[in-house]
């Protein structure tokens, strides 16, 4: 039993390592496949900018070293891997000489905070609504209303964001229009600061929840239909168990298992943020960082953000794999 678990753990850990390693390698290779030399591109942009840019010599030098055109490829690769695995992504070209790691470090907590809350709310609401679409004891009005709510799923989050801004910020002045906290509070661990953060987070979070809960609801609906027809659900009813108990312990409990894997994948994705949502709410997260970096062709930032996204996805999958045996006993021996 212990041996099986150790092997399971080892396998998962190996998968995690391999994923991150391959991802880092791809991030290293892909810019080198591009016919455009990023330094030429930099030079071109600087030239088209007209005037001379301060520090341009330092930037060039830093880029030359970063892309390592002076070294053989294996040295370049080795240095890159070593730097990446120690979270040294070099310096940003657009906000020179800020280290990329520092920029990511500043943006990451905002995105994780906002997106995590949005994802958890969406996961709970979506799965519950999906389950209620199938459950035979759901009140009739709900059965009519829930499918109608799926309309929101077809809306892009930027639209729901603008709509919510218009209603709850512009028309009804309930929530602030943008930013992560009020400029009138100091960023410190105080009640007023936390209150301000939550106040600012509601609209961006809502704009994501509204458009993404349908993904979970529709997935859950399909899973629930299968579970509803399973013999154990029929037997649960024949045992005279209470209907809510059957819903939670027999139906949702089994139907949710595949959803949890999907949840892990989403955790990784959310680090990239809802780029446009962060953009319109001027939320200082990873999405905005990535958006700005793409606009300014800030390669070190793009590479750093890409790596962090992949690392987070791999970590989330690793964690769920570790937790999965706790929620599905069949994995314990079968893994």
């Amino acid at each position: 039993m212990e041996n099986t678990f150790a092997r399971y753990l080892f396998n998962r850990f190996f998968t995690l390592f391999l994923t991150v390693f391959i991802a880092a390698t791809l991030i290293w290779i892909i810019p080198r496949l591009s016919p455009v030399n990023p330094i030429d591109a930099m030079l071109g942009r600087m030239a088209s900018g007209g005037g001379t840019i301060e520090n341009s010599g330092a930037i060039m030098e830093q880029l030359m070293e970063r892309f390592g055109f002076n070294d053989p490829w294996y040295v370049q690769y080795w240095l890159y891997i070593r730097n990446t695995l120690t979270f040294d992504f070099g310096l940003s070209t657009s906000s020179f000489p800020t280290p990329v790691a520092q920029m990511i470090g500043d943006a990451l907590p905002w995105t994780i905070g906002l997106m995590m809350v949005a994802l958890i709310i969406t996961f709970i609401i979506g799965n519950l609504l999906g389950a209620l679409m199938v459950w035979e004891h759901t009140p009739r009005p709900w059965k009519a209303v829930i499918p109608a709510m799926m309309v929101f799923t077809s809306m892009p989050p930027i639209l729901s964001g603008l709509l919510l801004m218009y209603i709850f910020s512009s028309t009804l002045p309930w929530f602030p229009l943008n930013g992560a906290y009020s400029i009138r509070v100091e960023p410190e661990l105080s009640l007023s600061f936390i209150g301000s953060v939550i106040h600012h987070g509601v609209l961006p979070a809502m704009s994501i929840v509204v458009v993404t809960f349908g993904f979970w609801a529709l997935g859950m609906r399909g899973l629930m239909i299968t579970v509803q027809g399973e013999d154990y659900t029929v037997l649960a009813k024949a045992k005279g168990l209470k209907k809510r108990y059957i819903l939670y312990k027999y139906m949702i409990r089994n139907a949710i298992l595949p959803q949890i894997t999907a949840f892990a994948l989403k955790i990784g994705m959310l680090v990239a943020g809802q780029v446009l949502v962060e953009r319109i709410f001027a939320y200082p997260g990873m999405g905005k960082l990535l958006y700005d970096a793409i606009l300014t062709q800030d390669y070190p930032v793009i590479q750093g953000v890409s790596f962090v996204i992949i690392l987070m996805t791999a970590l989330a999958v690793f964690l769920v794999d570790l937790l999965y045996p706790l929620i599905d006993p069949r994995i314990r021996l079968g893994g």
Partner: protein
Amino acid sequence: MSVLDIKNIHIDFPTSKGVVHAVTDVTLSVEKGRRIGFIGESGSGKTTTALAAMRMLANPGFVASGEVHLNSLEGDTNVLHLDEEGMRRVRLRKISYIPQGAMNSLNPVMRVEAQIWDAVVAHEGAVEDLQARSDTALEGVGLDPKVVGRLYPHELSGGMKQRVCIAIGTCLTPDLIIADEPTSALDVITQRHVMQTLREMQAKIGAGLILIGHDMGLMAQSVDDIAVLKKGVLVEFGPVRQIIENPEHPYTKELISSVPLVGGESFLHAQAAPPKGEKLDVPLLELDGVSKVYGSVTALHPMSFALDGEEPKIISIVGQSGSGKSTMGSLMLGFNDPTAGAVRFKGDDINRMTAGERLEFRKQVQAVFQDPYACFNPFYRVNHALKFPFENFGMQGDVEVEMHKACEAVGLDPSLVLGRYPHQLSGGQRQRLIVARALMLSPKLLIADEPVSMVDASLRATILANIHDLKDKHGISIIYITHDLATAYHVSDYVMVLYHGHVVEAGPPKEVIGDPQHAYTRLLIDSIPWPDLDRDWGDAGDARAALDVLAEIGGTPETVYRGDIPGFTLGQG
């Protein structure tokens, strides 16, 4: 005294094509301590009638009229008048249900004992000693509560799961137990054990029992009274001896005769002189020391045989689940590489063939599997499935003509079936089309793995007769893989009984099945529920003794050789 009275019940299913009358005017009573069998084919209304008593009809079915009286209720005894909460309290406490799907009827994420606890709590509230309750229930069905109680369902065998369901079904001592084909997914030895456990528990708590099934033999050995249903109508009802020995309704007679008996009359069309197959210097099919190991499990121990193709023959491989019989089938088809040894077709090792040789091998060796629906692509009409291999293998001749000939050979009207989609045909028609498809390629060898286990009993004989005709009329040799000794007795020229990957007994069927010598073969034959009341199935003690017999046989049984037939040699030793 009757426990349950069903009076003039009508059950309807409104569908888009109009109302389906699933049950029409059924009236019967279940006496305390008595066992009633509801028998009929799928769609006969047997399950629907029984589930109406629990008010658990599948959507959109409903009781259109009639009464269902549960006599232990106080006041109004008609369960159809109970409110939802009242009905919930009746389930399990008064009427319990043992479901068909032994494999999947327990919640996969809950420990076994917790699934007894939640049932007790739902009816009695917070009970002091739940552990003692589950322990008693599990002990009652012969399971060790210390071990089995802590396990999850996927860690149990099919028979153990079904005994857990019996433990749940009897833990609140209900008045009535409804068992819906409780042994349909189990092999005969386990079936006898589970059925005897159910009977023992039912007798102990004095409940009435409704046993739903389609197997007349199982009914004969398990119940006191039989109710025969056909298309929602109760066509015959009476004590088991009367029904088995003097059936009145033609449908009852048909059900009884659909169970093949060992030594009984053959259902095959006799043929005077079967055409000869090809004469070869080498055997048509040869297994040379073939074995198969999966991880730490040896599915098949080294086995050798040679089948000569000149005189077409049917060789049966008989065994229960896990005996290695399907492994043998997939090895012979080249779907699986043997761990050791070689499978040779006309002298060539099938795992070392070139692409061209392999194509020829695929053409000459055809297969028929258990689930005919899974063998068709549901998006194409069936004629596509029949044409495709014919054209793919570059066969000579007019495909339409060949297709019609093949359909007629298996007793199907080509104009009726060929233009249809697989889901528009019955299971029996689908399986016969699979046989026709194989026939169109004029193979030398057909491997049929449980070809009739998923079709209704009344059609089994017809399909086996079709397969038998392949030998008699078309000179095709056949390997028939089955768990059913009675059909093997009738169709085959030679039988091998497999147990844990070993051949335990082999020889002509009259010897092996008619007069078994090996302890395992005898046990198999004794475990079959015969539709013959004088051939007693024994009691729970016998079923448990059977497990001792298995333990005694152990992992490396001796082989009993019961004689040879010309053209087939089984490697000995």
